[in-house]
């Protein structure tokens, strides 16, 4: 059984969807951030796979930058999280709705 590009794309999509589910259902901010990591990672698989099947390095480059971006986001995200936690002693996003309408 040959594993083709489509297999990887489907896998990537499934993972992406799991990420989406996480994004939508998580109320704990930390775990919500985990879900966004999943999103970015799932795409990386596709990039690597396309890169492999096309024999082109660009995909790997993209994945590389995505990893860098993900890492930076973690830094900022955690910073915000800590800030929020310091003030409110929770990281529940339901507590975060003072602005509305």
């Amino acid at each position: 059984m040959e594993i083709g590009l489509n297999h990887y794309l489907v896998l990537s999509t499934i993972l992406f969807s799991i990420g989406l589910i996480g994004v939508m259902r998580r109320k704990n901010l930390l775990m919500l951030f985990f879900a966004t990591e999943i999103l970015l990672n799932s795409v990386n698989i596709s990039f690597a796979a396309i890169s492999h099947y096309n024999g082109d390095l660009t995909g790997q480059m993209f994945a590389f930058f995505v990893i860098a971006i993900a890492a930076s986001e973690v830094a900022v995200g955690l910073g915000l999280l800590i800030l929020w936690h310091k003030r409110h002693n929770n990281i529940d996003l339901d507590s975060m709705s003072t602005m509305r309408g």
Partner: protein
Amino acid sequence: MLEPVNISLESLNLMTLAPMLVPIVGALLILIIDFFKSEQDRSLYVMLSLLILGIDFIFLIESAEIFTENGTIMGVFDVMLIDGLAILSQFIIVGASMLFIPLALSQKRFHEFSYPEFFALFLFMIGGFQFMVATDNLILIFVGLETASLALYTLIAMHNRDKSFEAAVKYFTMGALAAGFFSFGSMVFYALTGSIEINQIAQVLQANNYENIEFVLIGVVFMLASFGFKLSIVPFHTWAPDVYEGSSAAMAGYMSIVPKIAAFVVAMRLFEFLIQSGIIWLEVILYALVVITMTMANIWALVQTDVKRMLAYSSISHAGFVMAAILIGTTQANSALFLYWILFSFTNLGSFSMLWISRQKNLPAGQSSDHSYNKFAGMVKTAPIAASIMALFMLSLAGLPPFALFWGKMYMISSAVTADFIVLALIMALNSAIAAYYYLKLIVYMFMKEPMKGSDGNVSVTNATLSLKTIIGFAAVGTIFAFLILNTLLEFITAFVYGSGY
């Protein structure tokens, strides 16, 4: 073994990097100054930033001249793309930033402006946006975008109060999701074309005659979602009012202009060729998005009780309006986009600055938000000039001639008409009427109501300083006399947009 690569320095066109490098170097400079001599007054950083942006502006003028002579230039392994769009949008980005930065010198001290990091991050952000617009490489767009966004999240949070944290977290989280969408979208395009440069993508897709239209569309969907977030297109707009409310008024005004023009340029690069190639689905979807964004945002703005939130929704609506340019896709429409945005910058920054000068540290009793309508009641009696200027901005935003935004609106609607989007043109026009209601509401409060009891009359200008007033005066003059420079502006923009092939 790999062959060594020989590259001549000339072929790199390193000059293309100059405008972007200026703010980055400037940011580093500020960091270094802070490192050696901390506890400096904010005015130092404000002026320093202004100077750096000034230099940036000069570089931009330089590259504009080069563009008029040589046309589009690729640089540094063809990653940099300095075309008319890049230059125009950078003008807007840098110009708006220059208008914004003096707002830091407010009467009262606010957290963010007291720290040099703010200015460093601010300059980094500008650098990020400049990179984002000056390339057609999705990687660089992505990285530039994230650089800017991360800095922006921090800038918002640095206002340092609960609402701003909340705003930053919301913006950040949704931004992360949008980043996921962006990378997914890029992946689809990459899978289809083996390239992540928009020109290449366009060429390959055209060569293939859009065989895999479903795949293209999926890519487009994710890109739209991602840029929809940045441009606050309904239903990806939900962050906008909260973030605007949470951040300082000055910052909110800034956010309504600069990130969006950057996103518009990328959206233009990305979607224009698709529109041109006649993908009806994209037209329909953009049509729907444009109409929904304009109309719904207007409708939501109607029911707001806080001026800043109202302006937030109004900004969303304006973004939707301008989004129509991408749908229409003619040279006139794209020129209209830039024209509109330049005029919008003046007016919107002006109106947010008016909010900024009325900012109090502690909310008086009976007010639940910083800039509730009530606060402005009877302003014409206590501060007639301020009230008149505010009214001027509101009328301009409503699209009343001969103030700045009218010309943008007119040109945009004209471009819709010219491209046979008559119904769209009508919708765009009538939306101005809906919008007029909430702008008028503020005017009504200011001019036709009695001041609230117990207000000392000084509320509306409590945060004013000379530098703030200068900026507002500048914006006001720009708003009133826009028609005088319109011809020059239009010629300039059209030449640049046309020269870049859009």
